[in-house]
């Protein structure tokens, strides 16, 4: 048995013996997920036990170095552990942008001191992070950001406004892009800085979306203070760090990567329910045709993603097809939600209260929320620009 298989069987045995009964099968249930931080509490004793036992093994961050509270696992071991967790449908003991974004970035470009300062607080669930990239006038054109950081004596004074700071109302610290040189070309005057949100100069407001409540916030900085020790990658060199972090957001478990290719099973059930069936077929032939198209679109995309995974597994560089995933996923997901609106018909018009089922209300909110799928984390327009330029080689 290879080392990796030894590791897998040990991990499996340990999980089967120790994972609390209450959390098994709960992988897809958000109420069992835990993001840590000063404001967090456990919703169930089993959740706390699970977090504590995993943290003790360093398995809140299995592939991070042991010295920062990680598990010290190699990539193959970490993958095996992930599969074993999935086998029992166990929720991750801890999640959030600390683990998925700023942590990996610090490991890659942070100084040892910065790693020592911040990473253990992530792995131990002490500090929850959020992201401060976008600004109202810097959307797709991120580098045009204007939030300023002025160095005054031994600190940076921050002024400006960030938007789409997901979870800022629940987070403790923010990693953010600031402008430190307004005279330099726009990519060259940017500094990447870490900041404690719990200070007088910071105000967080939750954003109401067209679909209702949301995790998004606006965050305002009025003479907020950051420690120069928390500048990552050097003053005016933040754009490089930003790009490193974006690769983690896009490749990893960041918010841009949620499965957008839900199967058609819900739509199919709704179609049978609302439109009836005949000899096993969805009765409305137009909707049936659209269901088939949707299922096919999903499958084509899934196969294309599988193709990419397979070639990466075989040691090949990911091909240009990866550039289409985010765009296609968000559009297929929108088509799904649009078809659900059609199927639900008048029952799709509910906002709350009587006269609509829970499922109908949820679906309508999902439709509205999903309109942002082609906007957030790179608009479809930007993605098409990128494909045209980088993949197809069309000139600027």
């Amino acid at each position, binding site marked *: 048995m290879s080392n990796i298989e030894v590791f897998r069987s040990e991990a499996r045995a340990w999980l089967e013996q120790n994972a609390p009964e209450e959390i098994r099968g709960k992988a897809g249930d958000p109420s069992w997920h835990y993001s840590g931080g000063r404001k967090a509490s456990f919703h169930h004793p089993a959740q706390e036990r699970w977090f504590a036992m995993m943290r003790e093994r360093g398995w809140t961050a299995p592939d991070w170095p042991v010295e920062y509270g990680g598990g010290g696992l190699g990539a193959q071991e970490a993958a095996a552990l992930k599969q074993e967790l999935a086998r029992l449908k166990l929720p991750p003991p801890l999640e959030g942008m600390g683990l998925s974004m700023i942590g990996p970035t610090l490991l890659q470009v942070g100084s040892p001191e910065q790693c020592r300062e911040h990473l253990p607080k992530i792995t131990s669930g002490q500090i929850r992070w959020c992201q401060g990239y*976008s600004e*109202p*006038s810097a*959307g*797709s*054109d991120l580098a*045009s950001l204007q939030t300023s950081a002025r160095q005054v004596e031994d600190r940076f004074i921050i002024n400006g406004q960030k*938007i*789409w700071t997901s979870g800022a109302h629940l987070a403790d610290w923010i990693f953010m892009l600031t402008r430190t040189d307004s005279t330099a070309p726009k990519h060259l005057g940017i500094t990447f800085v870490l900041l404690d949100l719990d200070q007088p100069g910071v105000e967080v407001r939750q*954003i*109401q*979306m*067209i679909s*209702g409540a949301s995790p998004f916030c606006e965050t305002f900085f009025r003479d907020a203070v950051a420690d120069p020790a928390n500048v990552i990658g050097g003053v005016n060199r933040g754009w490089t760090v930003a790009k490193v972090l974006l690769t983690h957001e896009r490749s990893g478990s960041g918010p841009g990567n949620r499965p957008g290719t839900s199967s058609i099973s819900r739509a199919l059930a709704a179609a049978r329910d*609302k439109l009836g069936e005949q000899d096993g077929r969805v009765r409305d032939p*137009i*909707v049936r045709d659209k269901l088939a198209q949707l299922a096919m679109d999903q499958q084509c995309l899934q196969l294309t993603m599988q193709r990419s995974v397979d070639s990466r597994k075989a040691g090949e560089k990911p091909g240009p097809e990866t550039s289409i995933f985010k765009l296609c996923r968000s559009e297929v997901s929108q088509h799904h939600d649009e078809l659900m*609106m*059609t199927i639900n*018909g*008048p029952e*799709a*018009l*509910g*906002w*709350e*209260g*009587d*006269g609509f089922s829970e499922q109908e209300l949820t679906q*309508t909110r999902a439709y*509205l929320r999903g*309109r*942002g799928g*082609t*906007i*957030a984390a790179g*608009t*479809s*327009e930007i993605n*098409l620009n990128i494909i045209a330029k980088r993949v197809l080689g069309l000139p600027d």
Partner: protein
Amino acid sequence: MPLLLTDEQKLLARTASEVISKQSPVSRLRALRNDKDELGYSPQLWKYMAELGWTAIPFSEADGGLGMGMAEVVLVTEALGRGLAPEPYIACVMMGAQALSLGGSTQQRTTWLPSIIDGSKMLALAYQEPGARYDLCKVDTRARRDGDGFVLEGDKHHVLGGFGADALVVSARTGDSTSQNGGISLFLIPTDRAGVELGRQWRMDTNNAAIVGLRGVRASATDVVGKLDAGAQLLRNVVDRATVALCGEMLGGMNEALDRTLAYLQERTQFGAIIGTFQALKHRAARLYIQAELSRSAVMAAARALDADAPDAANLVCLAKARCSDAYVLIGQESVQLHGGIGMTDEHEIGFFLKRARASEMTFGDAAFHRDRFATLSGF
């Protein structure tokens, strides 16, 4: 019937547009929504609309109306749609009261229409049933004969303008349905009659809509609107006219959303350029404009065909509703997309248009429904 506005119509359109742009900014709809206002509209503004004569437009002069037609109605609803005005013009004037205007007895008309026209009373049409989708003839509400009268039992929902209405015109099954349209009758039922239960239905457009329960509601023979057992055709006529009125509203909404999006394209800067200079966005904007223009032609033609009682009027109703449904949803979705992140926030007004677009699409039949009906009417 030329596709033109007469000078009188132009004047009406201009007045309506001015009134709505002054009295009904979208912020008004937002405030009503945030207050969870159960009526969902402004009784004061409704009174004012009545004073302006809008509520009198489609009624005969004999009934105290202005004796004008759908061509005028759509000018008013277009203005309402531009401001997303939540007043139940379509629900009351074009549905509840229209049923009386087209099919009511002299007594029903003289009792109700003057108070509708002066804005003092509200009527609604309760025809839609859970699970019936867009089929007017799928009626499970029963009106059982009881002596000289009837007893009504059943449920209605999406009763537009029904919450707070003074009376409802209700469809119910009185006979068997051996003939497809047979056996359905309309009843005029005051909402304070015993057994009428009204609940507010909260929809994404926040417009006034009610859930109606009829629990052993008694009705007399004089409550029947039109001929007994022959209510389906009357209902069809009312809904066809209301559909075109709604198309007018949709036309206003899609054009307002498009105008706002065009303004945003001319104002928003990214990568050092006004985003309206990006050719891909220009082409999409031009496509949206085309759909809005095609919609306008269809709505004008449908209104005139109804007014002229033209043989292809029903086809044109389908044409208008199918086109407006597709165009408004497209423009609504693209408007949000072209506004980017800010368009996804509730704070920005553009999302209200998308919600209204969907609510309008799902009222009186979506585009696929009307393509199917159009094909059937066209004999294929």
